């Protein structure tokens, strides 16, 4: 079981101080938050991707490779990577590079993005968002598994003899989570490929997410990847922690009341009742988080949203101390004790290498010499299948 933090990278006015951080301040803050996530004993840090203010994270692999460089154990990932407006060939290249630089301490979560104007800015159309996401991922999946790809689809220019470089670390593709809150087709795709499924679990009652997760588990088993209970599920969550529940409620209320998305709406008490939000003492946050397992089954990754709504970085770092120091250790113990036999471990590069190679050495692709035409042809690596070259030698 992995625990960590996910951020949407919003730059929001602090409703208590009235100050809005600059982009520079917020980018510095997110690096501190990621570093602290590892320091307090958590496992995962995830950043969103946006291409409009008031968000800063337009280039997630740049940020994540820096964070990977200044940490030792932390797994860096996304929440989410836009599989619609990004070219899947560029995703294949950028995240393979991140995988090499982080020595496998990364994965990624794919999402569609719901900001309509962003699509045309990148040459796409939100009305095609679902087929675009599905087709792009089918291509991405191949680019990380086949040295040379010929491909033709509806949304992207065709590829003939394309090799995505660098090949994945140890020739083991990065693990992929599919984030979705409403599309059965995305859950079906995650199940078909045996990938992970992540429900952000923030804004809505649990019933909303239960339907999709149950469907994903059933289809994961249908496609022969294991039992429904062995499917790879990740959940979000949102918490504000203080020593006493009274202090937590008092401190968080002004941020809650003005938060993007749900601020100026329901009362914090109603919202806590209706959604996975917990505001309270460490024990209260532990109790609420343990209900997630009861609702969704044993799962592999728990991420919390802690740095949004204008909370100042100092407060966020204090939150991480309480979360990592007092909440997560208890959850690790309690969830391990309740976990059914045979439930999958959270996926890591080491486990994926082990699954692919056992005790054998992982493949390390070495390119053939540049033939001077900048075209590598059908056999770009020394150990790639070379049907054409072999045939020529026989003549």
């Amino acid at each position, binding site marked *: 079981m992995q625990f960590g933090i996910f951020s949407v990278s919003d730059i929001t006015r602090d409703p208590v101080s009235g100050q809005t951080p600059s982009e520079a301040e917020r980018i510095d803050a997110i690096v501190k938050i990621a570093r602290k996530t590892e320091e307090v004993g958590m496992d995962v840090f995830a950043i969103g991707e946006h291409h409009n203010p008031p968000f800063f994270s337009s280039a997630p692999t740049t940020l994540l490779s820096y964070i990977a460089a200044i940490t030792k154990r932390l797994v860096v990932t996304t929440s989410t990577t836009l599989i619609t407006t990004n070219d899947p060939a560029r995703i294949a290249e950028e995240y393979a590079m991140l995988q090499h630089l982080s020595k496998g301490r990364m994965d990624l979560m794919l999402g569609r993005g719901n900001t309509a104007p962003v699509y045309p800015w990148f040459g796409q159309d939100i009305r095609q968002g679902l087929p675009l996401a*599905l087709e792009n991922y089918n291509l991405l999946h191949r680019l990380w598994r086949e040295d040379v790809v010929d*491909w033709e689809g509806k949304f992207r220019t065709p590829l003939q003899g394309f090799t995505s470089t660098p090949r994945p670390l140890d020739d083991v593709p990065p693990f992929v989570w599919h984030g979705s809150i409403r599309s059965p087709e995305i859950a079906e795709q995650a199940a078909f490929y045996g990938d992970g499924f992540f429900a952000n679990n923030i804004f809505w009652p649990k019933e909303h997410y239960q339907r999709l997760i149950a469907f994903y588990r059933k289809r994961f088993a249908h496609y022969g990847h294991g039992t429904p209970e062995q499917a790879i599920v990740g959940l979000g969550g949102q918490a504000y922690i203080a020593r006493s529940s009274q202090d937590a409620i008092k401190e968080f209320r002004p941020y809650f009341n003005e938060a993007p998305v749900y601020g100026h*709406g329901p009362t914090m008490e109603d919202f806590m009742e209706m959604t996975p939000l917990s505001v309270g003492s460490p024990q209260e946050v532990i109790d609420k988080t343990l209900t997630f397992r009861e609702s969704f089954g044993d799962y592999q990754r728990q991420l919390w949203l802690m740095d949004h709504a204008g909370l100042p970085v100092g407060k966020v770092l204090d939150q991480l101390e309480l979360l990592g120091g007092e909440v997560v250790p208890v959850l690790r113990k309690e969830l391990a004790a309740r976990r059914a036999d045979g439930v999958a471990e959270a996926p890591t590069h080491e486990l994926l290498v082990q699954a692919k190679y056992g005790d054998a050495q992982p493949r390390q692709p070495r390119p053939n010499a540049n033939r001077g035409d900048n075209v590598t042809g059908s056999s770009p690596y020394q150990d790639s299948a070379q049907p054409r070259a072999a045939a020529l030698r026989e003549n």
Partner: protein
Amino acid sequence: MSTFPQERYDDRARHDGRPQTLRLVVVSAGTSDPSSSRLLADRVAARVESLAGQGGHAVAASVIELRELATEIATAMTSQLTGPRLQAAIDALAAADGIVVSTPVYKAGPSGLFTSFFHVLDNDLLIGKPVVLAATAGTQRHALVADDQMRPLFAYLRTLAVPTSLFAAPEDWGDAALNKRVDRAATELVLLMDSGFARKVRQESWGSYQHELGSANGTETEIDLDTDMMRLATGGSAVR
């Protein structure tokens, strides 16, 4: 193709020719107590009960006062969160055999509270259900609001608005002609409720309407695997 989960919609025995209880739900957007919108709706409801009684049917009527749901409706609009009282109203409408909706007109259209309530409902919640449209106003100048503005909203929701819409300005409350129109609308509603049209159209054609996972008040749980998108989810490229 999914079928409507009948037990949620109709959990009581229905036998043709035998007395049955018809569920009538009144939705009023009036803001005073009692409001003229509510009074107009109540007159329809009373006529419906009496006409249905003559046909051997009991009527179980319930009233949704949107005024009491105002903050939950606003929350649902802005945060997509359904509060407990709004949920109770949705449950009542999901089980309704017939509906009477009534709104005040302030600015040449149904009140914002009224339209907001119907805008947050699932598109497929009210498919096929018979509805009486009623509006009240301080002047006759708003007389066409029911037919001109409410009817398209209820057409979008795939309801069956009865032919006679009701409108009452102050002078109508002293005019026997209003009673005649109330009688007409009530008769039309009872005939449609009694015909079981909504139930039958749902039985025979539910899958031909648009649904989303979790729509129709959480009853729409079937996932169709036999679609182009589902095939695309499992490999390949979109159809060019």
